[in-house]
C-alpha cells in the first residue's frame, strides 16, 4: 500500500542545522538523507531506515497511547504508521534541512494521527497491516524505563515522546555494551559494574567490588573506566545515527537532557 507520505512529513525544522557537505558522514540517518537528496532509492538507505524504526518504535507507540488511544488501538496504529513510513516515499521527501530523525518522526506521527481520513481508514480496516517482524523488535529491545512521581500523568504527548526517546537511546547503548561483554564471556562483569557507569570515582566502593569479583581494586578501577569510556562512545555512535551531521551529536544529547529535566 502506497500513500503520499508528504502528509506525514510536512516540513518542520526539528532543531536541525543546515549541513556542510564536508561534514557529511555515513550514519544511518545521513544515509537516508543522502539518498533523498539524490532522489535515489537504495536498498542500503531502506535498510538504514528500517533499522532506525526498529530501534525507535517505542516513542511512537508512547505518543499514540498518550493521545488517548487504548493500548490495542495504539498497537494497531503504530503498526500502520510504520508500514506506511517504510513503504511510502519518505526517502525522497526527507530533506537535510528538516533536521534530525527524532524531529521528523515526531512530526510524521503527529500528522498521521491528525489525518482524520487516513486514520478512519486504518481503524475501519481493523489494523490488518503487519509491521515488519514486530515480535522480534519487541524481543530485541526490552525496556525497563521507570519514572517516579506524578509528572508522567501530566506530561503532554510530545514530552512523553522525548522522554521515551531519551530512554531508548540509553538502553540501546547499554544493550550493545552488554552484548560486547557477553560475546567475550564477561557478562557477569558487565552486570556487576554497569550500575556504576554514571557515578564519580569517589561514589564507588572499589573494595566491595573487588571482593565481589575477586580481582584487585586497581583492576576494577581500570575496567570501570574503560567500560565507561566504551559506553560513552557507543552512546554517541547511537545518537550520531539519528542526526544528519556528527556536529549535532552534543546538541541532540543536550536536547534530550533538557526534555528529561523539564519532565519534573
Amino acid at each position, binding site marked *: 500500500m502506497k500513500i503520499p507520505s508528504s502528509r506525514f512529513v510536512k516540513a518542520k525544522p526539528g532543531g536541525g542545522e543546515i549541513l556542510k557537505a564536508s561534514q557529511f558522514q555515513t550514519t544511518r540517518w545521513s544515509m537516508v538523507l543522502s539518498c533523498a537528496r539524490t532522489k535515489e532509492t537504495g536498498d542500503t538507505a531502506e535498510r538504514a531506515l528500517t533499522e532506525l524504526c526498529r530501534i525507535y518504535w517505542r516513542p511512537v507507540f508512547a505518543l499514540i497511547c498518550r493521545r488517548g488511544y487504548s*493500548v490495542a488501538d495504539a498497537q494497531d496504529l503504530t503498526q500502520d504508521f510504520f508500514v506506511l513510513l517504510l513503504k511510502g516515499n519518505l526517502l525522497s521527501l526527507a530533506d537535510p534541512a528538516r533536521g534530525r530523525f527524532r524531529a521528523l518522526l515526531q512530526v510524521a506521527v503527529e500528522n498521521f494521527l491528525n489525518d482524520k481520513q487516513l486514520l478512519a481508514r486504518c481503524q475501519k480496516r481493523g489494523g490488518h497491516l503487519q509491521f515488519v517482524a514486530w515480535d522480534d523488535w*519487541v524481543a530485541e529491545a*526490552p525496556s525497563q524505563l521507570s*519514572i517516579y512521581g506524578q509528572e508522567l500523568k501530566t506530561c503532554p504527548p510530545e514530552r512523553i515522546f522525548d*522522554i521515551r526517546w531519551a*530512554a531508548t537511546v540509553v538502553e540501546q547503548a547499554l544493550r550493545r555494551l552488554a552484548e*560486547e561483554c557477553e560475546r567475550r564471556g564477561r557478562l557477569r562483569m558487565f552486570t556487576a559494574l554497569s550500575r556504576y557507569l*554514571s557515578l564519580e570515582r569517589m561514589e564507588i566502593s572499589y573494595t566491595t567490588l573487588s571482593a565481589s569479583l575477586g580481582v584487585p581494586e586497581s583492576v576494577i578501577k581500570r575496567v570501570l573506566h574503560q567500560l565507561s569510556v566504551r559506553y560513552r*562512545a557507543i552512546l*554517541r555512535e547511537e545518537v550520531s545515527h539519528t542526526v544528519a551531521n556528527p556536529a549535532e551529536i552534543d546538541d541532540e544529547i543536550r536536547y534530550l537532557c533538557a526534555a528529561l529535566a523539564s519532565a519534573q
Partner: protein
Amino acid sequence: MRGFGQRSVNAAMNFSGITDLPEPAAQNCARCQCGSLARVASGLCVSCLLRTGIDLEVQSDSEDFDALLESVDIPDRDWQLGNYRILEEIGRGGMGVIYRARHVPSRRIVGLKRVLNYHSDSCETLARFQREATAAASLDHPNILPVYDVGTTEDGLPFFSMKFAAGGSLLDSKETFRESPRRAVQLEPSTTLTLREFFTAI
C-alpha cells in the same frame, strides 16, 4: 491483541511502556541534582547516562575494548547460577547459551542452558524456553539427555541443567561424518525418531 508479548502489553498499560512508580523523595537523582526522575535498569538515571556522552574526547573502539575484556580475569566461568558454578561456555544459539557447569552440592558436572540476557523481556522467548525445559524433563528416551533441574537466576531468567555430553556436539563431529558417510546415514533414522519424540512432547 497482536504482536506484543504479554509482559510488554502489561508495561504498556501504564502510559505506553513506561512504568509509573510511587514517588519516594530519595529517588530524585542525588548525583548531579539534574532533577530527572526517569530511570532505566539498575536504577540508573537516564539523564546522567545521557550527559556522560557530551563532549567526549577519548576514543574507544570495539577492538581495543575486546582486548581489554580478554585481559581481565573476571570470566563468566566463575559465575554461579543457583547451585551451579559455571565452568565454560560450550555453545549458544539465538535464544540461549549453554555452559559446562558444576552442581556444587554434588560436584556433578552438568550442561546448563539459560536464556540470553537480552531476551529477558521477551514473553515469547521465555515461554518457548520453559516449554523446551518442561518437555525435555518429561522425556525418558535413550537418545535425549535427561534434564536434572529447572530453575531461575537471581535476575529471574530461567535455566535448566541436563546431563553433560562429553562427546561434543553434532557440529563438532561433522568432519568425522564427512569421512564416514555410512555412519552419517546410519545415524539419521534414530535422529529423526528422537526429534519426532521431542517435538511431539512440546
